[in-house]
Every structure is written in C-alpha cells, then in structure tokens.
C-alpha cells in the first residue's frame, strides 16, 4: 500500500514534469522552430480534454450501473467529428477570422458585438462549469482515498489535499495561461502539457484494460464470455435517454468553453481538423475500448458495494498491482488536471473580458486608451479570475460534500452548456438570427435548466421538496420535473427536452420578430458566409502598406488634417519612427471608433475589414448594410433637401425683399427728383405769371423780364420732359437707331457748332482734324447728341480762366476712341463713379438741365455698341467715348 508521502511525491513529480513540458513548449514556440508543436497530432490530443475524470473513472461506473449507455458520451463527439466535420471547420474559420477569445466572445461577436450576450454566456458557463470543476477535485480526492486508505467512499474528507491540488492547478493555469496577451491567444505550453496528459490517460486506461482482459480474464474470448454473462452486456436501449445524452454530448463537445478553447482558440491550422476528424474518434474508441471489460470484471472481483467509479484504481490494487494502479491514478489525475486548467483558463478569459474589463473600462473611461495600462489590467483580471474560479470549484466541492454520482453532475453541466447551442448553430447558419433571439433563447434555456435540472439535482435544500411534488404555489403543471403535466420522463430527458425546445423556439421567434442592427447583419453575413469571404485562415497581421491604405481611406472620411493628426499621434504612441503606425488591433479599434463617428459603426467596421482583413466583406454584405443606411440617408437627405429648399426660398425672399426695398427707395428718390425738376420751373412760372396778373403798375422792362423768365422756365420744362422721354425710350430699348457710315470729323463739326451756338462762347475747342478722318458706323444724330452733351458740359462746368476743350481721336483695337479733356478742375474723385446716374449735377447753380445728359449719353453709347467712361487722372474733366469703326480706315 502506497504511503501518502509517496503519492504526494508522485503527484508533485508529475506536476513538475507538466511544468517543464509547458515551459519548454512555450520557449520553443517563442523561437519559432516548433513545427511539431503545431502538428495535427498535438491538436487532436489536446481535444482529449473532453475526456475528464468523469470519463476516465466515471465511464466504468456508468457502464457498471447503466450498461452500454456510457457509449453515448463518446458517440456525441464522434458524430460531430465524423458527420459534422464541415460544421466544425466553419466554427474554427469563424473563430479565427473574427479573432474570438472564447465561446462567449463568439456569440457576442456574431450578434452585433453585444456584451450583454457575452455576459449571459459567461454567467451560464460559470454556473454550469463550477460543479464540473468541483467534480474533478472530488475525483482526485476519491482516488487519493482509494490509495492509502481503503475506507468507504465519501468518508474521506481530507480537504487539504484538494485545496493544495486546486491551488497548484491555479498556479499552473496562471503561469501558462496568462503569460502573455497574444493577439491570437494561443498557449503552446498548456496545449503541449495537456497533449502529454492525454497520452498518459490513454496509456493508463489501456494498460488497466489490457491487464483486465489478458491478466484477469485470460484473453479476449474469455472476456467476451464474461460480458455476455453480465447484465451490462444486455442490449437495453432506452431510446429517449440515448438520444438525449448523445445530443448533450454533441452540444457539450461544441459548446463547452474548454472545448472551444482547444478546438478553436488554440487552433493553429484549420487543416488540423481534417486529421482530428479521424484521429479523435480513434482516441475515443481506444479510451472506451476497455470500459465494459473493466466494469464487468470489476463487478465480479470487487466486493459488493464497491464504488464502480473507482474500479479503474481498485481492480489493479485488489490484485496487488500497485504500479499499474499508480499509472491509472496518474491517468485520472491527468484527466482532472487538464480539464481544470483549460476550463479555468477559458472561463477566466470570459470573466475578465466580459465582466471585469467592461466594468473597469467604464470606470476608467479616460485612461483606457493607454495601452500598457490596459494590458496590465487584463492580465491581472485573468489571473484573479482563474483564482476565483478555482476557489469557486473548491468551495462548491467543500459545500456539496461529494458523494453524488460523478456522472449526474457531468450530465447536468452538459445540459446547461447545451443551452448555448441554438444561438451558436443559428448564428453560424442562419443570417436571420438576431441578438434579441439569442438573448431570448439563452435566457429561457438557462432559466429552464436552472429550474428543471440544476436546482432539483443539486439537492441541499436549494429547491424545497414541496415545489418538486406540488409545483410552485401549488400549480401542478409547473412542477420542475413534470412541466406542463408531462410526467414519467427521465429528469434529464425532461429537462433537456423542455429547455432546448423552448430555448430554440424563443430564439427563432425573437429572431423573426426583431430587426437586426447593421452591425448584426454584417457580423451575421461574415459568420454564415465565412467560407465565401475568407480565402483561408489568416491572422490580422498588418503591414505598413495596409497603414497607407488605411491612411488614404481615413483622409477621405475624416479629412486630411484630422487623419494625419490621428495617425501621427498613434505612431508616436507606438513609439515607431515613421509617421504611419503599425496596424495593431488596438490602433485598428481606435481607428474604427473614429471612423464610425463619421460613417457609422457597421460601415467603419466594413471599411477597415476591407483593408486589413482582405476581402472579408462581400459586396452583398455591404449592400445589405447600405440598403438599411440608405433608407435612413434618404430620409435624412429628404429632410435636408426640404430644409435646404426652405433656406433657399427664405434667402430668395429676403433678397427679393431687399431688392424691392431698394427699388422702392430708388423709385421714391427718382420720383422726388422728377417732382423737384418739374415743380421748380413751374414755381417760377406760376409766381411770375401771378405777379404779372396782379400788378398792373409794373414797368415795361420788368414785364418783359418776368415774361422772359416764364418763357425760359417753360423751355426748361419742355427740355426736361424731352430728356425723360428720351431716357425712358433708351432704357426700354424701344429706340430705333439709324445706323450708317460717316466720317467722325463731320459729326464732331456738327456737335461743336451746335453746342457753342448762341452761347457766350468762351470755350476754346482744340481738335486734330487729321486724326478725325476715320469712318464710323453709327446713328450719327445720336452720336452727335452725345458729343454735344459733352461739349456743353465742358462749356458749363470748366472753371479755368481760359476754358479749353481738347478733342483727340485714336484707333485702338479696331475701335475709335474719342477723348474730351478740358483744362478745368475736373470732377471730384468721390463723385466720379456717379456722374452717369440720373439727375447727377456737379454744381446745381450752373446747371441748366436736370442732370440727365450723361445718363442719356451712356444709354446711347451702349445702344451704339460703344461706351462712355470718365477718365480719372487727367488734367481736367475728361470723358472717353469708344465706338465701332466702319470696318476700315477712310482714305485720307
């Protein structure tokens, strides 16, 4: 009989071996020369954590109690591996392309990155797996007790051993499970260690089996005979239980966090699945091969009442084969430890990522962007989570007191984890599955599992007996183990049937009734059509070339300055030399956040995916997202158009109003001017005509003088009316022009003579006749009118002592240019721009007219195809008239 010390020594040595293997594997992986570490064999062996102490010890017990039903536990994974190999490949592809870290992350990611869902899955997993961890601890205790004290099972309660085992496993998981925060979250050390443990437990079980068959029974045929004689050999198949447990095994194999960890997260190469598809069923076949012989022989050789769960240990021990028993013990120990380590790692990832980090981030929203800080916190959160999970398992073990049949806890745990299946499978194959559906299904399934299986199954007063027998509040059809009046079913079958049925129904109904968000649609498409999108398994390793693409895209969306600032600050944060940052996940996340501020989350995600993830998003997906945003965009653009129209209308109205006001002011001013111009001569006429009428005694000289005033003012009125009419006709374009060819000199002759006629002609007009012999095409009378006006103005306003007007003619660019420059003081600069306006007069005292002359002149010149402008900077008043030549210079 082995001593406790020896046992502990063996255990410690074994654990030390595991440490060394794990450490060496990590070192090897770090050097990059670890091809065999990434072999399909290691991957297949790592999958064997499916076989825990429950299967190692429990399968024999199961067979001893229920016959061949234990086969279902192996049947499930085999069916999945062989029959659903392509489904697993999809799961692995999705998991890798989405860089998921756990099953909770996968579900959350699929349904629009909902952390609520992740929390649900995490809580479900922790509640479901903690008893399972306790079960492993219990199995270690039991196996210890078998060895050095053949005491009745359950009486042994040396919890300190379990405590140290749990602590040791926690240290192992922390050391090798949280060494670093790889982007791909792979832990070569741990995987290699559990592969080693897989080999140990297989060899152990095979060794015991060989010993039983050939050592105890005396050969294969003898054993077969014994089996035939035993009740185990009878082919009693309870259809519903078989189907249910096979289904649970299938679900557990796919959904268990630890299975997900080794199968998806730790997967190095998708092609490994191809090997595992035959290798893992083979492993299962080998490990289950001797279960029945051991059970049958155990039942024969062991005394009545022995715990069949421990036959693997007790049968060799009873035959004095301590070394074999020790090997068997190590096999069981391996089964338990590998499961606990991986489960703790997987759960801690979920707990820290979905429970601890969100809370920490929300409380540290400002400092969250500092990368080093976050890494430190994540690692700490994982380590603490591992410790806490391990402690939960330990306390659960202490509180439950052990004793319950191992298999029942395993199945309860499986049934809980199976609640994830609808959301997982639906998420992989049904694009219509939504977050609401997943949430509804998970909640319903979780609640029913708690109510119908976990609480009644745990005992310990968690659910009062009267609830079980009479239902809550005496409602019979709500009895946990006979829901809706369906009685007589096996509790497991009952619970799994109802929970899965209602889970799936709720999942489908809520999915159909709810509308997925754009991100959900996008993620849904990426999950369901993962093979269309990704050419092969690839990491999110970026290159500088991608950074350039990202930069170009960001500039388009954020604007050049903003994008450059963002990229430069990121590059500085990363400590790089260039101005472009490495496309690390952290940077990509920040960029996605920045972009989503501009184009929405789904589009930003898709855009970055396009560049970094290659063609991870199809046109179809983008269209689906675009469809949806297009509706919103259309609506908002309609609004925009409408408000734009309103703004434009308002602006037009405002402008029209201003124009009207201005026109009204101009009109008032114009009417005021005309009124003034008309009333002023009329005032004189009226006043003097009344004077003439009322004063008989006026002398003849005065009478003549007053009559002359009346006459002059009447002429002034007539001139004014003529000018107004002329201007009106010109402005309305109703004027008829008599265009003909003529010599400029003749027009000027006529104008000078006319302007100076009758006046006390003090103005000297200087001309250079030789330059004036150009032929122009014009209305010569209208042209003369303009010249007369200019000469008359010079005569009126030139203030020089000896007024002089110089008229000079040039040919500039095919046009005749006629300048009228006098030697007076000219027109003040501040009014030069207004000389052509109606009623403009430089000096009212001298003005004979109404100030319409230049306005009319300009209208005429514009009609004649020329122009008239004031020439600033000359010695005196200076006007320039341009007009078209008659095609050629006249011969001199």
């Amino acid at each position, binding site marked *: 009989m082995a001593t406790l010390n020896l046992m502990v020594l063996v255990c410690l040595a074994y654990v030390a071996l595991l440490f060394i293997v794990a450490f060496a594997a990590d070192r090897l992986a770090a050097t990059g020369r670890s091809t065999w570490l990434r072999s399909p064999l290691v991957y297949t062996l790592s999958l064997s954590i499916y076989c825990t102490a429950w299967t190692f010890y429990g399968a024999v017990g199961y067979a001893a109690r229920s016959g061949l039903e234990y086969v279902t536990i192996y049947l499930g994974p085999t069916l999945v591996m062989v029959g659903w190999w392509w489904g697993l490949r999809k799961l692995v592809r999705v998991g890798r392309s989405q860089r998921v870290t756990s099953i909770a992350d996968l579900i959350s990611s699929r349904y629009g990155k909902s952390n609520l869902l992740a929390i649900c899955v995490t809580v479900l997993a922790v509640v479901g797996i903690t008893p399972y961890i306790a079960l492993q601890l219990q199995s270690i205790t039991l196996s210890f007790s078998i060895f050095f004290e053949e005491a009745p099972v359950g009486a042994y309660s040396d919890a300190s051993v379990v405590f140290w085992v749990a602590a040791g496993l926690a240290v192992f998981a922390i050391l090798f499970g949280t060494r670093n925060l790889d982007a791909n979250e792979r832990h070569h050390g741990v995987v290699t260690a559990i592969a080693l443990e897989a080999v140990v437990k297989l060899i152990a079980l095979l060794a015991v089996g060989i010993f039983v068959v050939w050592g105890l029974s005396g050969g294969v045929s003898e054993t077969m005979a014994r089996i035939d004689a035993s009740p185990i050999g009878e082919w009693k198949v309870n259809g519903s239980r078989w189907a249910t447990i096979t289904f649970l095994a299938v679900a557990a194999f796919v959904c268990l966090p630890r299975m997900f960890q080794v199968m998806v997260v730790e997967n190095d190469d998708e092609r490994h699945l191809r090997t595992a598809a035959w290798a893992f069923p083979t492993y299962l076949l080998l490990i289950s091969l001797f279960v029945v012989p051991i059970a049958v022989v155990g039942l024969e050789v062991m005394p009545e009442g022995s715990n069949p769960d421990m036959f693997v240990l007790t049968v060799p021990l009873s035959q004095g084969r301590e070394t074999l028993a020790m090997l068997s013990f190590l096999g069981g120990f391996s089964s338990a430890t590998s499961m606990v380590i991986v489960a703790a790692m997987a759960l801690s990832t979920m707990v820290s990522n979905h429970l601890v980090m969100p809370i920490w981030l929300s409380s540290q929203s400002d400092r969250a962007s500092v990368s080093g800080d976050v890494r430190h916190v994540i690692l700490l959160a994982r380590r603490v989570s591992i410790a806490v999970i391990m402690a939960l398992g330990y306390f659960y073990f202490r509180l439950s007191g052990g004793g319950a049949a191992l298999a029942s806890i395993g199945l309860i745990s499986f049934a809980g984890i199976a609640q994830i299946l609808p959301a997982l499978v639906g998420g992989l194959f049904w694009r219509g599955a939504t977050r609401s559906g997943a949430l509804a299904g998970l909640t319903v399934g979780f609640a029913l599992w708690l109510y119908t299986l976990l609480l009644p199954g745990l005992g310990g007063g968690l659910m009062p007996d009267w609830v079980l027998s009479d239902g809550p509040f005496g409602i019979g059809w709500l009895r946990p183990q006979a829901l809706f009046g369906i009685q007589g079913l096996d509790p497991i079958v009952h619970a799994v049937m109802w929970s899965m049925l209602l889970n799936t129904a709720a999942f489908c109904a809520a999915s159909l009734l709810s509308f997925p968000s754009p991100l959900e649609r996008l993620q849904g498409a990426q999950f369901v059509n993962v093979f269309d999108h990704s050419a092969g398994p690839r990491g999110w390793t970026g290159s500088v070339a991608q950074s350039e693409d990202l930069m170009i895209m960001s500039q388009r969306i954020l604007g050049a300055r903003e994008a450059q600032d963002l990229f430069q600050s990121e590059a500085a944060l990363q400590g790089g030399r260039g101005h472009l940052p490495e496309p690390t996940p952290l940077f990509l996340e920040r960029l996605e956040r920045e972009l989503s501020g501009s184009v929405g989350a789904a589009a930003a995600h898709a855009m970055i995916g396009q560049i970094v993830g290659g063609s991870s998003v199809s046109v179809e997906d983008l269209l689906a997202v675009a469809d949806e945003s297009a509706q919103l965009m259309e609506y908002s653009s309609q609004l925009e158009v409408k408000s734009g129209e309103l703004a434009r209308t308002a602006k037009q109205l405002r402008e029209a109003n201003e124009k009207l006001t201005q026109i009204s002011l101009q009109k*008032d001013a114009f009417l005021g*001017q005309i*009124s003034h111009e008309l*009333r*002023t001569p009329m005032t004189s006429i009226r006043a*003097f005509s*009344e004077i003439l009428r009322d004063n008989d005694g006026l002398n003849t000289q005065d009478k003549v003088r007053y009559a002359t005033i009346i006459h*002059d003012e009447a002429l002034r009125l007539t001139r004014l009316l003529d000018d107004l009419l002329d201007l009106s006709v010109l402005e309305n374009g109703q004027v008829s022009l008599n265009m003909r060819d003529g010599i400029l000199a003749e027009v000027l002759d006529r104008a000078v003579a006319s302007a100076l006629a009758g006046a006390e002609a003090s103005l000297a007009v200087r001309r250079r006749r030789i330059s004036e012999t150009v032929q122009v095409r014009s209305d010569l009378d209208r042209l003369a009118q303009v010249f007369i006006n200019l000469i008359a103005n010079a005569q009126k306003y030139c203030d020089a002592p000896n007024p002089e007007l110089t008229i000079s003619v040039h040919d500039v660019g095919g046009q005749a240019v006629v300048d009228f420059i006098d030697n007076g003081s000219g027109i003040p600069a501040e009014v030069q721009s207004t000389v052509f306006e109606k009623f403009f007069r430089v000096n009212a005292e001298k003005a004979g007219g109404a100030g319409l002359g230049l306005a009319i002149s300009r209208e005429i010149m514009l009609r004649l195809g020329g122009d008239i402008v004031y020439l600033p900077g000359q010695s005196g008043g200076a006007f320039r008239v341009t007009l078209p030549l008659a095609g050629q210079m006249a011969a001199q």
Partner: protein
Amino acid sequence: MGRHVLLIEDEANITEAIRFLLTREGWTVDTHADGRDAIEVIRAAKPDLVILDVMLPGKSGMDILRELRDSDGLRDLPVLMLTARGQSRDREMAEKAGVNRFMTKPFSNAEVVTAVRDLYAQASRT
C-alpha cells in the same frame, strides 16, 4: 428797422419772385443760395424769419432746420419751409424737426405772403 426775412433758395428765379412779393409787403429781404454756410449766414443776419428750401447744394434744408433748433438763440426763429419734392414724408420730417410752416412748390403768391405775415404775427405775440 423793418421786418427782416432771410431767403435761402438756390433757384435764382424763385428767389427773385419771392423777393419781389415780400419787398412789396414791406420786408427787408436777404438771400442766400448755399446750404453749407447757411447757419453762419442766419446767425450773422439775425432775421425775423427764415424761408428755407429743402433741396440746397451742400446741405439739405432739413439738416439746416435741425441745427437751427439745436442752436442757442435760433431755437425759436420762425421758419417757413419750401419744397419741390411733393412727398408727404418730407412734411412729417420737417414737422418733427420743428418747422413752423411747410409749403409745397409751386405755391400761390398770396399763400406765401399770408404765411409770412402769420408767422411774423405769431412770433411778435409771444
């Protein structure tokens, strides 16, 4: 010293007509044709009454009136305003500025004479 009127008007013919009418009534008539220095001319001439045109070169009659009403000694000077711009807005502006009488051109001679007589009588009574 007889009654003294200052006529500020830039139209020579109208000035001559009014001068004729008021001289015959016994008034001493001074005339001025520019708006710019009108205030100084009024201050220097110390007339009993001012006849003021609105549209004057340099400064409008309306501005001159406002300045008169702001000046010590000239505040109560009777002002008869003449305008050729027949707009009601001008009348309102003039009344607001403190005009004593506002007339639109063309006027009848009798109107002007009566208005001047009335304004003088009012000013003498107070």
